[in-house]
């Protein structure tokens, strides 16, 4: 059971995540969009969307800090356990709270604004459930474990984090997760579900963060000649001067 939950499921989910994105990008570039509904409604969106998105950006950074960077690295630069803990609880708590408030606003908006609800696909709904669960459980772990100290102290940096990294070393340590508190287990499990559905939802737009915009020239020029017509070249119609693409 431990192996199934903390070895097989994560690998399957991550494999779907990676392969799914490649497949989606190749098959459905046209569907790869934020699917913004701002045109329908922007009073609630104006608050909800930045709250959620900026919140989740900080939550992501927090996860990089907690999951990816080993404890002995932060020890090495002289960051004390208390300081780390304080940072994680304060920044993580605030960011998580903003994210949750934003998400609630957005879901409320989605449900109550007629045109927005009509534009919501089944996949969107499933994704919202998974996303809300993951965020709620994550916030619960921060608050319950860090602030209220329910169920004793659990240092995820020597548990969950090591398990997470072990997956990428291809030497999984499922026993670490098996010993983790239920809240963390549920958070990890729902996150795996979210990863597995990720490529098939609008969440793909996360990978379109247009940072390149900061460097590229303002006006983009393209030549028509490198792509003729709207379809790929039929066999036997290759141009003389260029190898077949």
């Amino acid at each position, binding site marked *: 059971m431990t192996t199934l939950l903390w070895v097989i499921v994560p690998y399957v989910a991550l494999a779907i995540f990676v392969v799914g994105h490649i497949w989606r990008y190749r098959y459905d570039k046209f569907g790869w969009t934020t699917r913004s509904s*701002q045109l329908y409604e*922007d009073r609630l*969106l104006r608050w909800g969307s930045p709250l959620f998105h900026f919140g989740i950006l900080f939550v992501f950074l927090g996860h990089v800090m907690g999951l990816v960077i080993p404890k002995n690295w932060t020890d090495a630069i002289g960051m004390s356990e208390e300081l780390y803990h304080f940072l994680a609880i304060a920044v993580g708590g605030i960011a998580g709270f903003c994210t949750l408030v934003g998400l609630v606003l957005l879901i409320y908006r989605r449900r109550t604004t007629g045109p927005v609800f009509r534009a919501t696909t089944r996949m969107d709904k499933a994704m919202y459930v998974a996303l809300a669960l993951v965020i709620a459980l994550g916030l619960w772990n921060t608050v319950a474990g860090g602030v209220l100290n329910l169920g004793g102290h659990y240092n995820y940096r020597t548990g969950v984090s090591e398990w997470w990294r072990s997956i990428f070393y291809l030497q999984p340590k499922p026993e670490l997760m098996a010993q983790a508190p239920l809240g963390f287990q549920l958070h990890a499990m729902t996150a795996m579900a979210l990863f597995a559905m990720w490529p*098939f939802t609008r969440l793909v737009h996360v990978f379109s963060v*247009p940072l390149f915009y900061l460097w590229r020239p303002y006006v983009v020029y*393209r*030549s028509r000649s490198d792509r*003729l*017509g709207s379809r790929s070249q039929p066999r036997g119609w290759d141009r003389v001067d260029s190898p077949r693409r």
Partner: protein
Amino acid sequence: MRVMAQMAMVMNLDKCIGCHTCSVTCKQAWTNRSGTEYVWFNNVETRPGQGYPRTYQDQDTWQGGWTLTKRGRLKLKAGGRLKNLATIFASPKMPSMSDYYEPWTYDYESLTTAPAQQHTPVARPKSLLSGKDMNISWSANWDDNLAGSTEIVPGDPVLAKVSDKVKLEFEQTFMFYLPRICEHCLNPACAASCPSGAIYKREEDGIVLVDQDACRGWRKCVTGCPYKKVYFNHRTGKAEKCTFCFPRIEVGLPTVCAETCVGRLRYIGLVLYDADRVLAAASVPDEKDLLRAQRDCFLDPHDPEVVRAAEAAGIAHDWVLAAQRSPIWSLINDYEVALPLHPEYRTMPMVWYIPPLSPVVDVVAETGEDAEDPGNLFAAIDTLRIPVEYLAELFTAGDPVPVTNVLRRLAAMRSYMREINMGREPEESVATAVGMTGADIRGMYRLLALAKYDERYVIPPTHAEQAHGLEELATECSLDYDGGPGMGGSGPFGEGSGSQTPLAVENFAALKSRQRSDFGTDPSDKAARVNLLNWDGNGSPSGLFPERRDSNEPADGEKRS
């Protein structure tokens, strides 16, 4: 000097009767789909009026186009790159659906399913967004022909810039139509605002397009475009804009809006310009210099040095020849009667307008004076500040001089040609008064009034070496692709997802011969015709030869077989 070619348009507003044929045919061709109900690549606005979307010209509100920083550098009015990215999660300056209009349909089914009743059943308007009953309170041409003008016209942002006295008189005196498409700017703010780099300008002909596969729906282009001519398809989540009908242009046909224009007021042709001068021209400090600066970017296609540079830059010789014959170049440079729309947005727009003289003529005619007498017209242009000020706000960033000059030239043409029509000797002094010669006036008259098809549209087709990209037009069924018709419009990820749809246009030669022919097309034998491209050479399918007549009934004039 970096020579580039730009496909451009000029519209002669004097001839626009506001019939909306261009809008309707454009919509049928391009935006007759769900998600684009409110999208009008081409629209015709009554001026004065609020335009579409409402008050789009008020850049203090909508923040479109470019502005100059304190140090004189060009910057997007909505904010620089960092600000643009930081506001990506909720675009702060985007028109909402109410600034366009809520698209609707009618519940036609109730007309056929209603039971017998005393009152006639009614097809209620249903919102295409929410599916609910709705009250129709605004649409794309709600203020057509100054409808509701006492309430709506005061909201015209252009009117707000002209003086109060003028404002009051204007509403009672003038009206004209302004057809608008995408400006295909030399310095497009939409492309500059696009975080994904999906909006691009084609090197060959300067047409600005949205790469539908690269667009991620950030909506920044909608804010960036000061003309609000980039629209957000709310079903596919992608930006869409006027394409200058590039599949038609590529085969040498005019755009749909131009082709179907009843007043024949649209001109299409090439302009050569120096791409190295564009940035400097767009950054001149005084807005009133922008018109001259943009004119200075254009290169004289007759200048041998320009021709050499153009060919060095890979512009084909027939394109240079087309640029020399271009009506756009003539109207902008030779006759100097075309002006850009809102040069103060600093995007270097490439759809230019000949301002209308008719409001002035109407006023003179109403006074009972001779409205074609040059003296009367010149005096009226000078004294009637009203149309000139308003037109100047539209076309010259408020500088009345270029508008006055154009109107004087149009007035001179009217008077000069009247003399010819009346069988009298035309007065050369009329022409010289506006800095032209009689020959110039006759040339301008030919281009503006006679407006021959070949002279209005000088569109060099793309090159033979690229022809197989267009092969689908003639030799294959344009519906022959994965998931073609009958496969349903929606992929698993919502509207329009999945692989792309090829574009197709009517066969160039067939359309041309149909349009130029002296006879109407007889569709009666259409069903009997055979497509020779599909004939394998065996047998004679029905329709290959004319039907054999009964042998004892001699057919006159027809060869017996």
